[in-house]
């Protein structure tokens, strides 16, 4: 079998709050099952064809770093990302990366930044940050009873438009906007969340589910064999217990 080709978009800029732990989790969970993993980092100035990859990861970044990449994104990467989304390539986008996939961001003082427009969501900046441990229940069928825990830290309030459904329903914390109980976003094989932590290591079933969307696109209907998740579950479970 070919290796699963995973791309970290802007790894030197969008790498806040341990988000690279998501890459580590995907790599290890593939390797523990004897499956290959090939990592590519794509940053400012690099040529990029999103359809070269099976899974694309975009993390969160600080304001300074996000400003660095905006010009590069709209110059040539935006279109490629939208096409890849439509063609069913898997994406995991966290926090700032989640916002970037949307149509635009309006800062709290009214300045509008145009983003990728790959999914129909938008974000409005807010003066008060939404910070803390949080948890939500997933809505996708095979993982619909799964409770995911993580840490959120964002000032943007994100709203989902037509055609985009939430990844989950908030149990504790703020989620997309602190108003409508939605957590994250789902569209085709795109998974978006405000969850740092990082989210995948201590939520292994969510990690496997995302990997399976990429493996299924590559090889046809694909299920990963179960592996021991005791350490993962006790780390995720600790946060869930404390919030409950």
């Amino acid at each position, binding site marked *: 079998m070919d290796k699963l080709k995973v791309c970290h978009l802007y790894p030197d800029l969008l790498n806040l709050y*341990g988000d690279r732990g998501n890459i580590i989790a995907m790599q290890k969970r593939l390797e523990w099952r004897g499956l290959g993993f090939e990592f590519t980092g794509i940053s400012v100035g690099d040529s990029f064809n999103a359809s070269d990859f099976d899974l694309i990861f975009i993390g969160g970044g*600080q304001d300074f770093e996000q400003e660095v990449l905006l010009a590069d994104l709209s110059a040539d990467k935006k279109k490629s990302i939208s096409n890849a989304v439509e063609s069913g390539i898997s994406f995991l986008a966290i926090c700032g990366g989640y916002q970037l996939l949307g149509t635009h961001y309006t800062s709290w003082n009214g300045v509008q930044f145009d983003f990728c427009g790959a999914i129909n969501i938008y974000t409005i900046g807010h003066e008060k940050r939404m910070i803390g441990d949080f948890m939500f229940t997933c809505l996708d069928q095979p993982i619909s009873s799964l409770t995911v825990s993580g840490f959120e830290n964002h000032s943007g309030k994100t709203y989902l438009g037509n055609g985009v459904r939430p990844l989950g329903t908030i149990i504790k914390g703020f989620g997309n906007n602190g108003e409508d109980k939605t957590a994250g976003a789902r569209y085709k094989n795109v998974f978006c969340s405000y969850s740092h932590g990082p989210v995948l290591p201590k939520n292994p079933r969510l990690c496997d589910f995302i990997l399976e969307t990429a493996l299924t696109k590559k090889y046809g209907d694909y299920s990963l064999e179960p592996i021991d998740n005791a350490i993962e579950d006790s780390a995720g479970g600790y946060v869930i217990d404390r919030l409950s």
Partner: protein
Amino acid sequence: MKIRIAAAILTVRITTLFLRIFGSGGTSFPGKAAMFFQRNLLEKLAKNITIVVITGTNGKTTSARITAEILKVSGLSFFENKSGANLISGITASFAMNSTLFGKPKNKYAVIECDEAAFKTVCPMLKPHTIVVTNLFRDQLDRFGEITHTRNNIISGIQASPTSVIVLNADDSLAYSISDSIINKTILYGMDSPPYGNDGDFLSDAPYCIKCKSPYTYKYRTYGHLGDFSCKNCGYSRINPLISADNIELGSSSSKIKLNINGTEADAEIALPGAYNIYNALSSAAAALTLGIEAVDIINAMSSFKGGFGRMESLNLGGTDVNMILVKNPAGLNQVINFLSTDNTQKKLIMILNDNFADGTDISWIWDVNFEKFSTFQSSLAEITVTGIRAEELALRFKYAGIDTDCIAVEKDYSKVIDNVIVNNDGMPVYILPTYTAMFDFRKALSRRYKIRKFWK
């Protein structure tokens, strides 16, 4: 007026004495109580003292201690604040404890460590002679916000004290860029060659130019984003520092360097391990130079250091060598891992992760740390015990770093950790890496167990 100062100082003395009797250290109460009697007490008490303030994200405590050591060897009369008391209340209390009842200073000099978030408020009150900014790394983003926010806070503090001399790290593109926004006299320190060669930990907090957002290129890197940087687009680049280290040899308990202070060169030994402590020593040498201490005296003081101060604390508990090193952010922990990797004696490791406010409630930073490096020297780690509030997350981090899960013990009860690792031990050294509040809690557990009344100031 004098009465109010006296009342405030008396308040600090009495409350401090009470707190000492009842055995709870590290509280902000005395300073706050004093500020109730005299709002600008700190400003008044600081007036006739020549003050060195040390701020920045990493290395404040160690730099303050080395600076203090140089002042001591030079025979100057000074006082320091305790490392835990680095907010306005603690600093106020330190000044009150070191003046007469009527507010006259007992010492000519003061070496003050100041929290980088508190610096903006504290600096204008102290009007320091010298301000050292050690470095700027990502640190507890939930508390401090983004690095650029911390940087701006430090700038506005300095701008309120235009006569202070500023000591900056030439190798730190974020910290050195402060010099553009201030009119103060500035002196620089740095390393003229890379301590780890091309094999360091170069996970960068600042890969893009702070001025024009183009990528930096490096002639060499020391660690993190530090090194001989330059921006090909706008020309912003490191300039040669006045105080520098070259010919660096890292050892497991000390480092040898060729120290250059304003052209005076000598071999020096830094009695603390790790490249980060070379930076701490250099920043202290620079601070001492601004006070008019001769280069020769600084070099002598530097070489006369005995180990055992700073943030690595070594104890012998019932025949077991126990070393405690505070870890609080990715840059610091990466440096400690690098240091552990250079020493191949068999050892046991205890790692303690808390997520209280003072530790940072967001523990995701452990995933930004190069834990994968542990797997390159796993053979010298007999045991890894993880504990603290978020012990499970540490176990998870070790698992995903490729450490054999059979070697990882999760034990949340400190007294059992002490039994399993320190008591039940046949002569193997133990390294304890706690976060901030974990350090205090674990020390308490150790002192209960070994009946130590006070083993560290």
